[in-house]
């Protein structure tokens, strides 16, 4: 499948063998990197453990997250001793949409189940219309597929911001010197026709944080579709799954094929339907990505029901931190539609003061509304 390298010199043999170990451990090692490793080994001493170690790291590792895996692989390779079996982190997990009775905290919504049966009987709406308002939790597998079709049609525009790039404009107030010069050539060097430019506009980054914990299970998959629609339709989108820990899924969701994208993202997230540590996950996001720049001036969308097993004070503090740097924070809560729902979840209550828009997220219609909220931020 992947091109192979005819190994002749000791450096080549070493590089090829080690690359094989790395690939076996799950690291992506393109041939170009192996060749760079061969070059590097050519300049170093092959009998020096540290030199080989660092040469491999400089040429074949490109993310700090991969360093622990590299380290273990290097040990295996260098000492030729086997460590314990690899933890199955990379194994694709099957995502089921079964709604199991969450015994705890009473977060099931009995009212909506009955309510959504009704329109099916009276059937005045088109199937699509029914689907649009049906609670994701009550979807059948087929309906889910239809909804996914609908969702791919959502378009995300989002508010622009001023960029450093300028574009020609009649109303602009900055002289457009290149254009003025070009027309001056035609008028004997006299800049008679003056051209102007104004600041261009750029899209704001959209950051999506999807809660994939147990209480969100009926919704998480549908919401992830929504996120996929956003990621594949728009240039500057970042997506993360939050549960017991934070997982970045932007790259996995980038695939055009939604099923493939979801399968890839699903295999990346190891804590599907686990508990929720919203505050901790958000803190990790803020520390590693958000505050460093990703969330600055961005629209941040949190998709979660707000059930948090951690300390609500942590969640509150992290939401405050997030709101201070983000342009707009939107919280999407699928439970918001439940009649009489007040944000009783402690986490939700702690987070709410730092949320700019609080919207529902239980159905297609709600998702459309969310897309509209995102787009409306224009003014």
């Amino acid at each position, binding site marked *: 499948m992947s091109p192979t390298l005819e190994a002749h010199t000791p450096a080549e043999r070493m590089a090829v063998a080690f690359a094989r170990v790395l690939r076996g451990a799950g690291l992506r090692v393109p041939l170009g990197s192996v060749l760079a490793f061969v070059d590097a080994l050519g300049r170093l001493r092959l009998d020096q453990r540290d030199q080989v170690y660092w040469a491999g790291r400089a*040429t074949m*590792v*490109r993310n700090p997250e991969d360093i622990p895996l590299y380290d273990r692989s290097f040990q295996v390779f260098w000492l030729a001793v086997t460590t314990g079996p690899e933890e199955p982190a990379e194994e694709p997990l099957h995502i089921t949409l079964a709604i199991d009775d969450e015994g705890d905290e009473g977060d099931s919504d009995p009212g909506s189940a009955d309510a959504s049966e009704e329109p099916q009987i009276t059937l005045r709406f088109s199937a699509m219309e029914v689907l649009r308002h049906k609670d994701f939790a009550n979807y059948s597998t087929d309906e889910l597929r239809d909804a996914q079709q609908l969702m791919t049609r959502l378009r995300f525009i989002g508010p622009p911001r001023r960029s450093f790039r300028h574009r020609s404009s009649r109303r602009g107030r900055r002289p457009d010197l290149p254009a003025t010069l070009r027309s001056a*050539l035609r008028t004997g060097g006299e*800049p008679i026709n003056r051209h102007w430019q104004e600041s261009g506009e750029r899209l704001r980054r959209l950051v999506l944080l999807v809660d994939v914990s147990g209480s969100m299970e009926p919704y998480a998959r549908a919401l992830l579709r929504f996120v996929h629609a956003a990621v594949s339709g728009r240039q500057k989108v970042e997506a993360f799954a939050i549960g017991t820990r934070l997982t970045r899924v932007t790259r996995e969701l980038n695939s055009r094929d939604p099923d493939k994208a979801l399968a890839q993202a699903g295999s990346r997230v190891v804590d599907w339907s686990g508990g929720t540590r919203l505050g901790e996950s958000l803190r990790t996001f803020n520390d*590693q*990505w958000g505050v460093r*720049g990703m969330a600055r001036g961005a629209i941040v969308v949190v998709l979660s029901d707000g059930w948090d097993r951690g300390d609500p004070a942590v969640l509150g*503090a992290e939401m405050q931190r997030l709101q201070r740097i983000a342009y707009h924070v939107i919280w999407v809560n699928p439970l918001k539609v439940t009649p009489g729902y007040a944000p009783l979840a402690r986490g939700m209550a702690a987070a709410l003061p730092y949320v700019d828009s609080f919207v529902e997220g239980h159905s297609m219609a709600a998702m459309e509304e969310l897309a509209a909220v995102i787009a409306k931020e224009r003014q």
Partner: protein
Amino acid sequence: MPATPDDVHEALSLYGYIPDEGLATSVFLSMVLQRPLLLEGEAGVGKTEVAKVLSRWTGGELIRLQCYEGIDVSQAVYDWDYSRQLLHLRAAEATGESLGLTTSALEQQLYHERFLLKRALLKAIDHHHELPPVLLIDEIDRADDEFEAYLLEVLSEYQITVPELGRFAAARPPLVVLTSNRTRDVHDALKRRCLYHWVEHPDFEREVRIVRMRVPQALDRLARQVAGAVETLRGLNLYKPPGVAETIDWAQALAAMGVNELDERTVNATLGTVLKYREDQERTRQHGIADLVKQAFDRGFQPS
């Protein structure tokens, strides 16, 4: 050209930067393989400093390109000096020189190298000095994708084309150092073109040596205590754990105040030089300044 990573280690140390083994090896490989070096890591771990010390060591001119969102060709590569071009045009008109010229001949005069404003990238490529320059592309993660794609092209071929003039190729490729704070992922293709090194906070002994080198007026005991206190601070789960830059700032502040060793009052008064967030300062005070000082003392007394 260095012969081994140890040579690099020695040279960098001599010029004021104490690298760990990984960094020395990466720099060495970057020099001998003529590949750009991508340094990623937390803010304040000394990524930018690597380029500066390389320039001091090799004697190559330091050319710095600070990236930001929306950076484009006219700011990073080249621009035309339009006001001078216009003046030239009018002068040609006034002296009657332009009468005998066709528009295209006139245009050719205008798009001459003397009206070209070379920005950092072109400067680094079109460089005729005997020593190759050190090109620092700082905070590449702030620039956008299109710029990264352009950069990849430049860093693969070491040449730049100006449509009106033609191709500029580097006689000797510059030493290229890219830094990223990882606010977003740098594109994989660009990463593959580069050698990659993740820069970490230095360990205790290395940090002591850095403080001793950068703040020579600080006594050895103070240097050890400051490094020890910073080590403790990094373990406190702060929003922004102090980097080497902050350690140096702190040691400088303390030395300037004539402090020979830490005590609770001085730490309290100077905490702002190491911790730049109010929440972090609060957290540290909750942890207890007295404890911090005590731990720093323990570290400071340990013979190396």
